């Protein structure tokens, strides 16, 4: 039952996307976990988290972005310019970080040189960096502005009932992911970290209803599966910069570790945060997506983030933490040092690993460092 997830996570134009294209249904891409996909689900549109896998060169990304910029948005631009995202009828660019928000201009400008690279619906979604009441009010307005833009462009009506139904569907997915997270942390291995990560990634690019159905089936299978002995493999938590690439988790596990937990954008970072099903659904979405401060883009909320990480590490019996950051990702890079200090003070060893996003061109170097780290904690 893991196959649908592996397949969906392994390619950009997955089978669900292809189906929608052939049936004339809409798919809209988005770039940040602070954008509520429930809005698109409620409109009958597939929300698709835009990814950077399958990048093989960077001439388009490098042509529009400057040199001192993280490779993740460059990969997204590269793929957009190459037409890999031609199945998207829309895209929402959020203010996740400076490099990601500038994808708005870079994509639009690239489309002047690469015809058809730009989806018809192209929306800038401005997310506050804090949770004060006035910031929350701004975020609610942004959500309403997005709903209005989607409704207008696609000629759909997004009612409160549609939104509540979407929220219920996404919350169900979160409950299932939480169960998966618990199984992943079992003493003996029920599911590998690589597969668990694939499930989480697939959840961002599959229709949610289908995702829930597949995940229920997978969990049924895992509940009764015979666990594979851990054989002394070290229990690792991975956190830091954005990652949607299974190969990174696989690389860690192939060196003799089990990734028992993650706190990564695209991973199972905040499944525990349900959207309230009471009251105004826009208010509920805003409260959930802004309040959990899961990313260092929420300045000044380090303690909240570390408390979540510590709880995760303690619950899963983490023996080592890998703190990875993409070069030029200053927010995760610097915060990783704070996390390292705090975990080391708790007696949990850490490895800080700077890398480039994209095809794992640095596999040898990273493998060597991870092996050395595992030796250290053995």
């Amino acid at each position, binding site marked *: 039952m893991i196959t649908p997830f592996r397949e969906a996570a392994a390619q950009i134009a997955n089978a669900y996307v292809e189906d929608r294209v052939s049936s004339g249904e809409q798919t809209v891409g988005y770039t940040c976990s602070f954008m509520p996909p429930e809005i698109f689900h409620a409109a009958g549109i597939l929300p698709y988290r835009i990814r950077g896998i399958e990048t093989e060169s960077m001439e388009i990304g490098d*042509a*529009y*972005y*400057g*040199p*001192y*910029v*993280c490779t993740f*948005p460059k990969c997204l631009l590269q793929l957009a310019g190459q037409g890999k995202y031609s199945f998207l009828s829309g895209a929402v660019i959020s*203010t996740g*970080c*400076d*490099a990601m928000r*500038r994808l*708005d*201009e*870079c994509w*639009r*400008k690239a489309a002047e040189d690469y015809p058809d690279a730009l989806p018809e619906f192209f929306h*800038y979604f*401005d997310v*506050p*960096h*804090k949770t*004060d009441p*006035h*910031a929350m*009010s*701004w975020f609610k*307005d942004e959500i309403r502005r997005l709903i209005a833009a989607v409704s207008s462009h696609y000629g759909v009506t997004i009612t409160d009932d549609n939104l509540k139904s979407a929220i219920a569907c996404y919350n169900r997915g979160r409950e299932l992911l939480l169960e998966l997270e618990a199984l992943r942390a079992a003493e003996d291995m029920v599911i590998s970290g690589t597969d668990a990560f694939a499930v989480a990634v697939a959840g961002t690019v599959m229709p949610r209803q289908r995702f829930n159905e597949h995940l229920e089936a997978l969990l049924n299978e895992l509940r009764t599966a015979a666990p594979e002995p851990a054989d002394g493999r070290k229990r690792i938590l991975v956190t830091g910069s954005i990652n949607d690439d299974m190969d990174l988790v696989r690389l860690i596990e192939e060196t003799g570790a089990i990734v028992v937990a993650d706190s990564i954008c695209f991973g199972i970072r905040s499944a525990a945060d349900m959207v309230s099903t009471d009251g105004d659904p826009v208010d509920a979405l805003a409260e959930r997506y802004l309040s959990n401060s899961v990313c*260092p*883009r929420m*300045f*000044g909320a*380090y*303690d909240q983030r570390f408390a979540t990480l510590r709880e995760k590490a303690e619950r899963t019996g983490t023996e080592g933490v890998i703190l990875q*950051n993409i*070069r*030029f*990702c*200053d*927010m995760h*890079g*610097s*915060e*990783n*040092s*704070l996390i*390292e*200090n705090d975990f080391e003070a708790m007696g949990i060893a850490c490895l800080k690993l*700077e890398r480039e996003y994209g095809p794992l061109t640095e596999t040898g170097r990273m493998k060597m460092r991870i092996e050395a780290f595992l030796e250290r904690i053995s």
Partner: protein
Amino acid sequence: MRPEIYQYNFDWMLWRAIQAAGKLADGSEKETEKMLRYIPYFRKTAEVFIGMGKPGITYLKLIEKYLDNIVTAHEKGKKIVMTTFCFSPSIFYAMDIVPVTLEVMTVIGSALWKRGTTDYMDYCVELGFTETSCSSQRGSLGAYLAGLGEDIDLIVTNTAGVCDTNANAFAFTQKYLDKPFYSLNYPAGLTDNPTNQYHRDDFRALIEFLESHTGTTLDQDRLRAVLDETAKQEAIVAEIEELQRLVPNPLPVTFNFIIYGGRFFFAGMPEYTELLSDMAEVVKDNAQNGRSGITSGNEKKRAFFFYIDHYTLSLSLWDWLDRHGISHIGSILSRSFKDDQPYMKGMEDVAYSIDTTDLDTMIDSIAMINSRMPMVRSIRGPYDRPNMWGEESLALARIYQADCLIYNGTPGCRNTWSNVKLLAGDLEKAGYPTHVMYGDAFDERVESWEATAARLEEFFTIRGLL
């Protein structure tokens, strides 16, 4: 960090050096000449200021006062706030809080010491900053993180939504030093009603934060005095910058630097008004006599820096421009966007106004001033939206009759490095030769000044500008 660096407090060293520099011109010419021999590295920088006459000396004394305020703040029972250059210090002065503005402290150290502030930059990396984080904060922040400066009482920044690396540096410091922290956060818009309301709400929350962490109450009369002084200052700046439109430009090349530097140090305080008055006299005299501010008197070209300047020992950028007859007609840091500035015609929406009718209007005014500070004003939203970086750069280039535009920043600037190629392309299409500098405004190890100068030379030559 090298052990010897630990021996002296960063802010104290700056203070004593600038204090001595400010007194250099007090003696006879012969005495000054003798003294300069004892400061071989700082000599050229000191000579630039002394050579400027009264405005230069006033500027050194103003910096000295700024540093004196910092090193004596706690003795005087005042709180110290760590803040950023794009945050107007006026509100702090209105509440008797002493600002330590990281970037201006980095600039002083960079212009003063042969080694610049690189030891402090690297110390931040030792503590866990990425080496790619912006050098403008790291150059002085490292000293404060190492305990080599006055203790910081609270941290206030306003770059969330504008500059991640800046906001991140302050957020890191909040955790590392365990200090109270407030960050204003700017939306992508600038002039729409919800954004204006948001600016007001956020600033009121900031005032509550300041009051609760300093035990100071915002005094209406004091705030009014600061705003009245700000209005007076901006009227003088308007006069100076209007004359900058003349060909030849009567402003000496360093005057833009002094105008914005003074604003970052002492906006709303009489010290800055005095400096501006001294500068206005020089500029008016040059203008009346049709004289260029360039030392040779021969203005060959006019350059607009559409981001920031380059701050290294000996103020090499300005020296290079002056020697080549290139007039510096401003940067993103230069202009305040007050409603009565002549260049605001056609950009009225972007302007701020000062209304001292009552406390509410004054808080609204100061919130507006802050939202129009450099960088937070025009690189918050997509660069090609109305009033943003592209439109503003082109408008100012036209008004001040630029012959070319130049980008200079730091490799730490994720924001502008993500779209500067696009903007440079637009500027070229609009007919302006545009040069992108790849060095670091605060750290010559990235690219030596000599290499930067060679590239500037190449640009001006190849594009037929010189």
